[in-house]
């Protein structure tokens, strides 16, 4: 395998690589052995602690309802945040200062505040002012969704803005040349193309939302997947296996979404009909759109965002 960093290995390099592999295997085996032994010493390999996860009851009474809550919160947040984000993102591109400035302020402010602070605020807000309409059982869900919407609407606004800016200038120019108005240019030319360009970035953002729901479980006692750990390990006395199973569910779910985003991105890049503008899937923690502020606008987005450059 050849890359920027090294050539195809010759006999000397092959020998060296073999030595590195051997050293790495030994180190890895030592760490793995230590971890396995540690689990053995604290009786984690006892079958009774793992067996519950093979019974249907544990899944139907604890894990699946909790997972459903996680998915519900994530889906609600995405569905509410997306239109809000689109409005904010387009507002940031407005020609009028009085539209642009407040949108910019809102987006920059909510991107700078941790989600946890927003969730705690929403929870307290609902309990102080809405306690009659929102009962304390559903309040965590409302608080989690509100916190996630406030944060992710501003992140999605940046994705929308980057998506529109990633389109070649000729699109706007041609649309204006045939006499379309500003709104028409946005509605019938830019947005339809930008939506395809941002799809991978939006799917990646869904992963971030999904992960952040766990925060609501710990801080606001929202009954999501991570929170089901309490009831399961309290019932069966198996905290470590429960942690591992829950982590595995998260990994499987998010890995599927990440892979889907990467596949979408690759497919869109290959598509001949499009303008070739694709917003990279990014690395999942900060949106690729964040590069817009840091690195300036480039012709095709996602080049440096780790989504695999063209």
């Amino acid at each position, binding site marked *: 395998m050849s890359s*920027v*960093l*090294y050539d195809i290995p010759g006999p000397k390099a092959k020998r060296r690589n073999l030595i590195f592999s051997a050293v790495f295997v030994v180190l890895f085996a030592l760490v793995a052995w230590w971890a396995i032994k540690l689990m053995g010493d604290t009786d984690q390999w006892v079958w009774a602690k793992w067996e519950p996860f093979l019974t249907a009851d544990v899944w139907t009474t604890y894990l699946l309802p909790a997972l459903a809550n996680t998915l519900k919160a994530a889906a609600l947040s995405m569905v509410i945040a997306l239109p809000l984000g689109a409005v904010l993102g387009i507002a940031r591109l407005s020609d009028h200062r009085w539209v642009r400035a407040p949108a910019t302020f809102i987006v920059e402010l909510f991107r700078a505040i941790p989600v946890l602070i927003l969730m705690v605020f929403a929870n307290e807000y609902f309990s102080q002012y809405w306690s009659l309409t929102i009962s304390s059982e559903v309040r965590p869900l409302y608080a989690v969704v509100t916190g996630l919407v406030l944060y992710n609407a501003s992140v999605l606004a940046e994705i929308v803005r980057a998506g529109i800016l990633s389109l070649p200038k000729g699109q706007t120019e041609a649309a204006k040349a045939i006499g379309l108005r500003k709104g028409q240019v946005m509605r019938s030319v830019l947005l339809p193309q930008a939506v395809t360009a941002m799809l991978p970035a939006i799917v990646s953002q869904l992963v971030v939302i999904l992960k952040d729901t766990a*925060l609501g*479980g710990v801080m606001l006692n929202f009954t999501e997947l991570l929170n089901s750990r309490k009831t399961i390990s309290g019932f069966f006395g198996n905290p470590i296996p429960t942690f591992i199973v829950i982590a595995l569910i998260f990994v499987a779910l998010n890995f599927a979404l990440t892979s889907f985003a990467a596949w979408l991105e690759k497919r869109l890049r290959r598509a001949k009909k499009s303008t070739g503008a694709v917003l990279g899937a990014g690395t999942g923690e900060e949106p690729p759109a964040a590069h817009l502020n840091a*690195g300036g606008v480039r012709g095709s987005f996602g*080049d440096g965002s780790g989504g695999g450059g063209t």
Partner: protein
Amino acid sequence: MFDFLEGYDLLGSFWTTVQLTVFSGIGSLVWGTLLAAMRVSPVPLMRGFGTVYVNVVRNIPLTVIIVFTSLGLADTFHITLGAPDDLKAQGFRLAVLGLIVYHAAFVCEAIRSGINTVPVGQAEAARAIGLNFTQVLTLVVLPQAFRSVVAPLTNVLIALTKNTTIAAAIGVAEAGLLMKEIVETEAQLYATVAIFALGFVILTLPTGLLLGWFGKRVAVKR
């Protein structure tokens, strides 16, 4: 107006946030660089390990990792990081460990994407004029890679600053936990939220502006 804050260690909590950010920032930079080195190395085993680590860790919620350091590592396995009796120091160290494990995956991806922006032709041309491996790396590839890594690393650092609030989940006395405490006992909800929001804006905005300016300055124009 801000009388209600009396008796709360506001500055102390933000100082803990800063400390969490600095320690886990340095830690994840070191571990993330090592991971990136593995992911781009010619040894398939190391590449495989790096890929699996990144794909697993960045798909687990940070909350799960941080809660695990406390309930799993400390309570079950008795790994207390040299502070078995001092619960405050123990929580802090465990939170730093969790933050490092999580953010190293993102640092790794940022660095790898930086290396990937260097066109293969650059290295090929360098080899063609007779530079050896070390020279290719130190004179041609890495200087260009470092420059394009500044912007993505800045984003990871800002995300890390905000994510330190998750340490509240295991009771580390940082800004997020103090805010929860204040809004639950005091009546001034909006003022409290405004203060804590401002605190985080003060922490993240200069970092973003400064490193953003720096990143733009050193970026390679292609």
